[in-house]
């Protein structure tokens, strides 16, 4: 199917492009696949039609938005990819695995297609805490049941066995800090961040409408997420006026700074962690939302922990390839994974722990550590898990 380029070119204001190549130059996947943002834009500018089907590399994009960050002319190259994916989605020509993920979200509210009623299984063993949390928000919409702080767990932390402990650690830490969070319980659905980036604008619109209504009904002052992906879309694409959308690292850094959350000093019974940690900036937290300092502030506050930096950090952090729907599409080059490169870089710092603050990063990088045979030297942990260990009650009674 040939796409008429004119309308989309005008809509996305691609005319500002000067073909400088900073987008493709900075694109983490351009070096391993045929994806070239600059030439895609050029075709849009000079050709009347585009054969979108011929560009299967569109599915390689991780929506890390490095191209958007680097563009000197405020063109948003990644938005073109999202729109072109939309053309493919519209006509049903999507990779099968992606179709399954979208269907899962449509039917069960999560990309794994797991049952909606199982959404709270993550809190196993913490039923009491969850019951309290749920009680606050499960009557969403009724004015009497307002809660100050709403915790949006997210799909992966709810269902994935590797990430569930991160959500539990977060819930425990809320309680330690004397916070009283609510959750949406089984009414929580996918935030849609990846849905939009996979090009499924219709489904995304539906999610924004339904989730938005639910969230506003709770009347929370603050909305905290486990994932930078949920955080990103709630912050930028939902129009949640009057609600402060926070990633958990922001809230934790704030609590630590205000003295609401303190780590016990190392003692004989508690010799401290003695970990050397390097931190990987997730794209949706760092590049896309400029949250670089808070995660580091948390790590530096943990007694006994030593933070070392990778060369590529902050604005230059290397994408793990988990975003933009890539958790459900392999892309055109399976052999060279950026995550492999990334864990090597982490290992080169001499760190024993690679800290992340994103469920996708945790999964992709942990997988890469195994494939690269680095399990002896490096473990991948979410900052939340490190905080939880440091706050744990006396290990030996």
């Amino acid at each position: 199917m040939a796409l008429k380029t004119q309308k989309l070119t005008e809509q996305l204001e691609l005319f500002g492009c000067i073909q400088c190549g900073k987008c493709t130059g900075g694109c983490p996947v351009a070096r391993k696949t045929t994806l070239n943002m600059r030439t895609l834009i050029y075709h849009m500018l000079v050709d009347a039609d585009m054969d979108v089907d011929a560009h299967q590399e569109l599915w390689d994009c991780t929506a890390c938005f490095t191209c958007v960050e680097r563009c000197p002319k405020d063109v948003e190259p990644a938005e073109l990819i999202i729109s072109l994916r939309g053309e493919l989605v519209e006509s049903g020509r999507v990779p099968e695995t992606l179709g399954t993920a979208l269907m899962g979200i449509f039917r069960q509210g999560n990309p794994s297609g797991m049952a909606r009623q199982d959404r709270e299984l993550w809190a196993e063993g913490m039923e009491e805490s969850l019951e309290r949390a749920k009680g606050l928000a499960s009557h969403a919409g009724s004015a009497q049941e307002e809660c100050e702080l709403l915790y949006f767990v997210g799909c992966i932390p709810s269902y994935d066995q590797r990430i569930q402990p991160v959500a539990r650690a977060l819930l425990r830490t809320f309680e330690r800090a004397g916070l009283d969070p609510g959750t949406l319980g089984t009414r929580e659905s996918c935030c849609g961040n990846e849905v939009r980036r996979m090009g499924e604008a219709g489904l995304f619109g539906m999610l924004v409408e339904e989730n938005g209504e639910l969230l506003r009904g709770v009347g929370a002052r603050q909305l905290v997420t486990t994932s930078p992906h949920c955080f990103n879309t709630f912050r930028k694409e939902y129009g949640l006026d009057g609600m402060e959308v926070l990633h958990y690292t922001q809230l934790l850094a704030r609590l630590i700074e205000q003295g609401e959350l303190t780590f016990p000093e190392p003692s004989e019974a508690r010799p401290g962690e003695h970990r050397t940690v390097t931190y990987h900036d997730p794209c949706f937290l760092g590049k896309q939302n400029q949250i670089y300092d808070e995660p580091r502030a948390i790590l530096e506050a943990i007694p006994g922990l030593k933070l070392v930096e990778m060369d590529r950090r902050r604005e230059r952090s290397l994408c793990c390839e988990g975003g933009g729907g890539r958790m459900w599409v392999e892309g055109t080059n399976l052999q060279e994974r950026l995550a492999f490169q990334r864990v090597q870089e982490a290992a080169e710092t001499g760190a024993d722990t690679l800290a992340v603050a994103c469920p996708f990063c945790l999964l992709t990088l942990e997988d890469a550590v195994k494939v690269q045979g680095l399990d002896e030297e490096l473990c991948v942990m979410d900052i939340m898990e490190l905080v939880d260990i440091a706050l744990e009650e006396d290990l030996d009674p």
Partner: protein
Amino acid sequence: MQRLSLTLMGDTMMEQKPRIGVYVCHCGVNIAAVVDVERVARAAAELPGVVVARDNTYMCSDPGQALIKQDIREHGLNRVVVASCSPRMHERTFRAVAQQEGVNPYQVEMANIREQCSWVHRDKGRATEKAGLLISSAVAKATRLEPLEQREVDVTPGVVIIGGGVAGMTVALDVANTGLPAYLVERQKSLGGRVAELNRTFPSLQPVSELLPPLIARVQDHPNVTVFLRSCVSQVEGYIGNFEVEISGYGETGTPVGGDPGSKSDAPRAGLSVGAIIVATGYDVFDPDRTPELGYRDYPNVITSLEMEERLIRGDLTVDGRSPERVAFVKCVGSRDARVGNSHCSRVCCMYTAKQSRLVREMLPEADVTVFYIDVRAFGKGGEEFYDEARSQGVRYRRGNVSEIYRKRSAPGVDGGLAPHAGAGPVVLVAEDTLLGQPIEFEADLVVLAVGMEPRKDAGVIQQLLKLPRSADGFFLEAHPKLRPVDTAMDGIFLAGCCQGPKDIADTVTQAKAAASSALIPLIRGSVPVESASAVVNEELCAGCAMCVDVCPYDAPTIANLWRTSRINPVLCKGCGACAVTCPSSAIRLQHFTAAQVLAQVDALVQ
């Protein structure tokens, strides 16, 4: 200080019976294609007071002007109405025509039937009708126009120049060479500005050491130039021809210190009376901390172009004691980049990069020299030839701007220690070669970031002091981009050099000489004409309420006389009319826009 010389131009101020000539311009097809010019001219001939009405292809042309002059003589016209373009375009032209034939220039009225009619309408019939109305309105006003006095104010010879770089020094010398005093105010402890930090200039490759010290010496030795070092302008009052400028010492903290007796400033506080002020405050160099993806803060072998100049002066290009084998240049750092707030092109980086790359080729013949660029802008005289020479000497140009710079830990020269920034091993430039359409990783031992120019961070101080507007890019705004490039919105204040926008040394000197000559015009003439269409107070009606003082943006009215009534300084008054409409006693009359004149115009339009 202010002495008004009154000269009555043209007719006597006695009551005249209006004899009006109306001239309808075709402006080629600009007006004539939409407005039936012959018809509106015929209709105008019927209006009361109109003696003659004509249409002509171009009224502003010599034959057009001659037509008016001939009619004034033959028909004894005492008022002229020209229906053509905006008065901003040609009012001065037609006023001069009238004046040459003895008609007071303020008895000329314009009807704008181009910008406000033919250019914005398509319907010929209705456009013609509107043009007719605009002309009757202008005729109605012309009937009531009064001759106004042409006034002049004396000037104080002398110029204050703010900034002692190449621009400021050039102005100072031109002013001083006419015999007038030039006061050069520089914040630093020496003259020379940014050029003093450079090695050689393009395209001649002349060393700055041959160019700058003689210039500084000529300035310092000139009997008519007074140099204030470590000083700044702290206060400015007055108007064109008569400015009072206060000079204070400039402290280490960047604030005036002259008034404080305990300060260590070299310069005493001084008060100067001058006729003109030239702003030559220069630019700031872009700080690549604002493009963190280029790793400037992280790697000692990633340097700015200004640091490269310093290395070229020292003749030392080594990195960690070794001669670099691969030297890369990255263009447009902090220029043409909306992200960092600099959408403009800095105009010099392409040429100084060509210069630096050539010098590196000469110093290190074995080294690979590669320039990453988006576009090469070698526009100045000799620029393209200089760029040709750089390439013919083996400088490689690769099209594609660098997106990121990082260092591979495994790269040679870096030991795998824990400290992330130890040593100065080669870095990797991540880019796309856009001509090949291929993402590339390019290793280099030394990287030069071609940083651009941006407005001074403290440009706001001068902006407030002199009430100068700035353009969207933050540089000071010239009065007109083409026709008044060194003037500002403030009469008597002129711009020179990079404070107005990025430019190279040659353009800076050109502009500085233009600014000097523009500033000197009133100083050599000895007086400046003052706009006569200004506000005057009828002191018998004025109650001294001072509301006019509050509304005037130019500080023209004062309540200072014995009777506590308002008086408007006609030199400061710009004729905006704010006071006239504010005055509760109707004591203020705005000449050339009196209530009777304006109401007559309105009446003509609504009849």
